[in-house]
């Protein structure tokens, strides 16, 4: 049979202009921002709390209490599994195995070491990270700002000052990134505040297997009405799960600070 001419035509303009024309059409027909692009996905077990996902360009703070770090990781896990990059800055004691079990993709997690200074919290915002390559002193806020440009979610474990926080929030809004601040790290009022209300551990086989918690989310805009959900954080296999058939009422008994009297100090 006759061999087909595999050589492209000498005049390849047609080949060249089609993709660029296509790009122009795509640009014109694309919505200003797709609904799916405004929010990052969350794990199905968090849909009761965040039905629209994690809105891009917002700040989230986790309130102090047991389970705060695990909640932060679960919050970012959905986006991480969906291809977003996550950076954890100033969390030197993050348990990486648990992070992976909770659903964060380890291959898209960046851990930035900002040195021991920031954990001590001496002079918020101005804590030097140590001399950079050029001998300059780099503040944590500079590192966080660079990370906001690079990744979709920054988990903030180092303290920032209130003026830095305002600038970082503006930068996150501009870049469409989300800042998730661990307890006590965000000086202002974040757009979304999450709280873990008490936890009860299950030890079915004489080993810690699962923890049942109630999580409350409240904030601005669509999140103004507080939502509550019961979760396994973590569930029996290490990954989070919704509590089946749970009435998100007041059934979770909080355990307070009880100190055993008479025990030696």
């Amino acid at each position: 049979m006759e061999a087909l001419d595999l050589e492209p035509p000498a005049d390849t303009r047609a080949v060249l202009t089609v993709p660029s024309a296509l790009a122009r059409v795509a640009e014109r027909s694309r919505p200003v921002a797709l609904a799916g692009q405004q929010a990052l996905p969350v794990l199905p077990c968090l849909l009761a709390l965040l039905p629209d996902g994690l809105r891009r360009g917002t700040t989230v703070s986790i309130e102090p209490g047991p389970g705060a770090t695990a909640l932060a990781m679960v919050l970012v896990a959905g986006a991480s599994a969906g291809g977003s990059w996550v950076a954890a800055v100033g969390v030197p004691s993050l348990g990486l195995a648990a992070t992976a079990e909770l659903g964060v993709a380890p291959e898209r997690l960046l851990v930035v070491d900002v040195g021991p200074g920031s954990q001590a919290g001496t002079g918020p915002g101005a804590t030097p990270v140590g001399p950079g390559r050029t001998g300059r002193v780099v503040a944590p806020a500079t590192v966080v700002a660079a990370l906001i440009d690079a990744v979709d979610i920054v988990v903030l474990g180092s303290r920032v000052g209130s003026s830095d926080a305002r600038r970082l929030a503006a930068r996150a809004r501009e870049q469409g990134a989300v800042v998730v601040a661990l307890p006590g790290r965000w000086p202002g009022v974040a757009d979304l505040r999450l709280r873990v209300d008490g936890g009860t551990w299950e030890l079915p086989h004489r080993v810690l297997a699962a923890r049942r918690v109630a999580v409350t989310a409240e904030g601005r805009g669509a999140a103004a009405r507080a939502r509550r959900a019961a979760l396994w954080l973590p569930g029996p296999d290490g990954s989070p799960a919704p509590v089946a058939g749970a009435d998100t009422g007041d059934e979770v008994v909080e355990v307070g600070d009880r100190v055993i009297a008479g025990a030696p100090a």
Partner: protein
Amino acid sequence: MTASRGTGVTGPTRTLLVWCADWPVVAAGVASDEPAVVLHANRVVACSAAARAEGVRRGLRRREAQSCCPEAVVLAADPDRDARAFEPVAAAVEALAPRLEVVRPGVLALAARGPSRYYGGEVAAASRVREAAVATILGRAPVGVGVADGLFASLLAARAAAGGTVVVEPGATPAFLAPRPVSELARVLDDPVVVDLVDLLRRLGLRTLGTVAAVPAADLLGRFGHLGARVSRLTRGLDEHPPRARAIPPELVVSTEIDPPAEEISQLAFLARSLATELGDRLAGRGLVCTRISIEVETEHGETLARLWRHEGGLGPVELADRARWQLEGWLTAASGPNPSDGPTAGISLLRLVPDQVVPDDGRQLGFWGGARDADVRAARGVARLQGLLGPDAVLVPERRGGRGPGEQMGLVPAHAVRLGAPAATDDAARPWPGRLPPPSPVLVHAPSLPAVPFDAGGQPVGVTGRGVLTAEPVAVGIAGRAPVAVLACAGPWPAEERWWDPAAFRRRARLQVVLADGTAHLLVVEDGHWQVEATYD
């Protein structure tokens, strides 16, 4: 500019190709008579001649390779090291003939026409080039030089030369290729799909390149798509991509002037990366992909180094940035080496990327609106920026390791040590770790551990006996000197004896999980009677 361009000749370019055998092994500094294997992702990617004599082949698993040749030195694959070590060879050959292109570290090609006229024939040119290359690597590896029509045939000729020179006469290339096995295709088409294609062709009865060449090109295109068309061209002794008479549009050239001139490789690598991204965007906007690029650098004193790089699959921004870094690293290290005149004498003031050969991008299918790749590129750029800001080891990524403790199962490695976006794991990760705690793992692993004391009902510290039993049930735990908190539940202890065969590394520990009344849960560990909070289930 290029020999293949503007001449109006449709045949493949006469190509002179230098092939250094087992380059990854040579670059690692291992003598060729010493058995060594280079592994990537637990597979052998290169081995020394001594290891090959013992039966080691490319593609074997680490364990298989070690069972063939237990005394082999095991080296990790490092493309940066390979490229850095290859730069002196490229420089030596470039002194004889300009406009050489580095196909990959260990292989370089140049148009044979100019040098063969200058040195009086292709055989003379080939042996001159070979002598220069052998002198540079001090005879540590066999160097083969092949001259044939097109890159593919000259690569096969250089390999067939087995440390000498082979010249395939003009027009004889199809006959030279015909008896060779189809698996040779995988040597130039660096694409995992090609391995499958070669396997399929073999099962279809097309075992040699000649039988594939006899199949009508249209049938191969119809059955295997663009890859089939490329295979057809290669087996018929043509260039992989049809030659183009079209000039590269000048707006595809990207450059940056560096003021003040830079000497730090991290800064230059960062600039190269952003240039590569810019070029990638411009090419993508035209639906093109670059298969050959000239990377040009210039110093403040006007010294220049231009090098051609080729990649048949097309050079994406990441590959471009890698090649620019290799070239700069090779040049900058030459300045501090034994022969400083080979290197630059001043800071780099100009960096320019000039696409030399572009073809319509018919390969990878990208997401219509741009997909996860965009995020990966952005993250890689951010990592480079932070490394420039804080130092190369400041950005870390998790790596699966293996171990019994909560902090040992995964560790952190500097981001530049692994491929970003690909799961990182050491060999230990896949091994069984009996005695390791089942999930869920603790979310906080304290480094260093916090001191702790568990108390029994009588207020006495609790211990673990030599048989791995608690001396008493703990009722309260005091952590880091604070007042003791009541224990709601406790689980364990799980004894862990590690390296009992090694008196220096022997460790005997026991772990205990406690749930405290303040809602926290901790993992306590006792060693030599001292309790510590190793991790917290936050």
